[in-house]
């Protein structure tokens, strides 16, 4: 056999072989399973939160019998490694190779933004229960990106600022991680606090993964503030809370925080130093509401830990989207109808404990709880509600169109109203 024929035969054999292996999905029958791509950081600095995203999400699907709208549901999980380049690569793989019907997940804002930009180009529905970058449902709204079970960063600190003013606090010192999520949460707090007559006596921004807060705490101690607002997540939250106590500030100045600061993922390994910190969120795992406690019990029985924000929001997100899928009888291929239906779906009975619905921009409206860390009957710390602000949207009391004329929150623009 001469070389040319050899090549041709080999080539054809290879082609036949790989053709079989790589056969693209042909016409999807109506009873083919719905495929959902879940991206979560299984490795990297926020791996613990990623684990809980997967656990919370899977818990819902188990309880729903792995089906929705009369079709079976397949979940494909990919690791985004806590970084945006990997998230983008995995999103591509899920959409182009695994041909998923929708994407869910991601944790860090920069990973979410990278994926959001990608789905903008191909219309894949993308649900983000944890990605909180404000503009995704405001000035830079992408119509196929919806915060099912999620929130925008500046949404919850505003009622907290209002509550702080009601307690009589007038001077706040703020410390925050120096990235968009931090800027937006602090902006939300600062704007409401100053518009209500308070003053921001100092703002400290520190790089992510700061191990040593003493430079900042030392300066805060000298500022004469009534209250401190800390926007911290993950390891930074643990260290700030510990160092706040060990430097003696805990007994001097009350501490308020963004909800991530006292999330279960932070406080479940901590002791008395995390007691009494006040934060605001769309749920409190210690709330005495039947749906909340049922979820907490199911989750703790299965995973031996009280569920965190990551578990709550992905469970709720899955629940919310499933309700919409049921409404359209599983026809997720018709993306426009699917997305429209999701936005029109109300969720009255989720673990959040209160009914929720979407606003006109793809972001939910919640009853916000002001909550405080306290010990539960087992001696573990969790958050219990001490006040509620009903029906808070991402725009607070502002008119959306007027609000969106002001620039997005950044390190330089914090919405601070000059006295």
């Amino acid at each position: 056999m001469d070389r040319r024929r050899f090549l041709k035969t080999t080539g054809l054999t290879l082609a036949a072989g790989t053709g079989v292996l790589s056969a693209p999905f042909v016409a999807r029958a109506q009873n083919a399973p719905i495929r959902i791509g879940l991206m979560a950081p299984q490795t990297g600095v926020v791996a613990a939160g990623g684990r809980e995203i997967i656990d919370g999400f899977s818990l819902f699907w188990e309880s729903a019998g792995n089906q929705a709208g009369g079709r079976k549901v397949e979940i494909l999980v990919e690791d985004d490694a806590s970084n945006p380049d990997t998230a983008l690569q995995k999103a591509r793989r899920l959409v182009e190779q695994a041909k998923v019907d929708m994407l869910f997940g991601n944790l860090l804002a920069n990973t979410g933004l990278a994926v959001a930009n990608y789905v903008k180009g191909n219309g894949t529905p993308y649900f983000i229960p944890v990605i909180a970058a404000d503009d995704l449902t405001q000035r830079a709204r992408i119509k196929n990106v919806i915060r099912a079970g999620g929130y925008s960063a500046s949404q919850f600190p505003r009622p907290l600022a209002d509550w702080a003013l009601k307690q009589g606090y007038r001077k706040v010192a703020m410390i925050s991680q120096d990235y968009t999520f931090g800027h937006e949460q602090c902006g939300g707090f600062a704007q409401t606090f100053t518009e209500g007559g308070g003053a921001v006596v100092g703002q400290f921004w520190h790089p992510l993964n700061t191990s040593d807060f003493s430079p900042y705490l030392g300066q805060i101690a000298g500022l004469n503030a009534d209250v401190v607002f800390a926007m911290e997540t993950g390891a930074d939250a643990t260290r700030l809370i510990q160092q706040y106590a060990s430097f003696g500030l805990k007994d001097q100045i009350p501490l308020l925080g963004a909800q991530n600061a006292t999330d279960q993922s932070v406080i479940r390994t901590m002791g008395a130093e995390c007691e009494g910190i006040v934060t605001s969120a769309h749920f409190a795992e210690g709330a005495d509401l039947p749906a909340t406690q049922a979820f907490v019990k199911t989750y703790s029985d299965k995973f031996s830990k009280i569920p965190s924000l990551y578990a709550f929001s992905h469970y709720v997100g899955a629940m919310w989207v499933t309700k919409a899928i049921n409404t359209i009888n599983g026809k997720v291929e018709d993306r426009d109808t699917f997305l429209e239906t999701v936005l029109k779906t109300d969720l009255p009975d989720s673990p959040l404990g209160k009914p929720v619905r979407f606003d006109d921009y793809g972001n939910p409206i919640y009853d916000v709880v002001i909550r405080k860390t306290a010990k539960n009957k087992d001696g573990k710390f969790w958050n219990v509600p001490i006040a509620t602000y009903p029906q808070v949207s991402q725009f607070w009391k502002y008119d959306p169109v007027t609000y969106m004329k002001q620039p997005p929150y950044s390190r330089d623009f914090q919405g601070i109203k000059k006295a």
Partner: protein
Amino acid sequence: MRTAPLSAASTSPELQIRRSRALPWIALVLVALAVLPMILSSYQVSIATQVLIFSVLAMSIDILAGFAGRTPLGHGAIFGVSSYVAIYWTSTMGGDIWIGIALGVVAATALAAVFAALAIRTSGVYFLLLTLALGMIVWGVCLRWTAVTGGENGLRGIGRPAFIADHVSFYYAVLVVVAPLTWAMWRLVHSPFGLTLRGIRDSESRMRSLGYNVPLHLFLAFVVSGFFAGVAGGLYVLFNNFVSPSTVQLSQSVSGLLMAITGGIGTLLGSFVGAAAIIVLENAVSAYTARWQSVLGVTFVLIMIFAPEGVVGRARLLLARRRSRSSTQRRSGG
């Protein structure tokens, strides 16, 4: 002080025989690469494109590690800076994509020159650590200089021009670019300049005593290596349409080095094998488990212990051994 000319005017008879024997293989490989999109799915073609782009990065590292004997751990930064400049030019400044890529390559080359100027005096482990440190400085800048680099959010690109928008046409475009680049690198390392580099790798003191300007050669090698890494960075912009600090971080440099090592340090073309192996392995492993990091670590360890010369390097050794055995058989009148 002598400096070897960069282009080779001489072609010895032995070289000519080697070249004519290699020609049909080269043609075969090119044909196979050209035919690939017809047997792979569209997504798999994009993986193949990724392999081509990262092969260029790995080859650029091999120029230094394999031929000049200096193993760098900062090429990820050089690669990524090219991407950053290109995307900044197009997305933030609204400029033309091709000019942006050209500027990116210039920036990468300039950065390599800076790295080189500082690193030339060192060798071995110190060279490794210094390039690592320089790469970390670049990463720190990309992470903190939010106004220009977008900080941890990175920068989004403006997409590919229409004629290469789909995976298959982009693949062919990249192939058309990578083939001549490979040829250029090949000619470089087999030119008198390349031979001088190898001399420096084998015995620096001897080359010095022979009158060669060792620092200049190393400096040029680093700069040229940076140039090619920059081109890879430009192609990456078209491929990924996004750049972030993770593009310039240490793991990118480690990844590129691992690809070069897996294929075979000092073989140049081994980088293709190495890149394909690592990228395909990552795709395969990640489908089943999140333990890619362990798999990568184990691969690293196994290669270092059992096959530090890489796949192509090992193949060459075996081939050479067979050839010498058969020639001794012939000589002993078999």
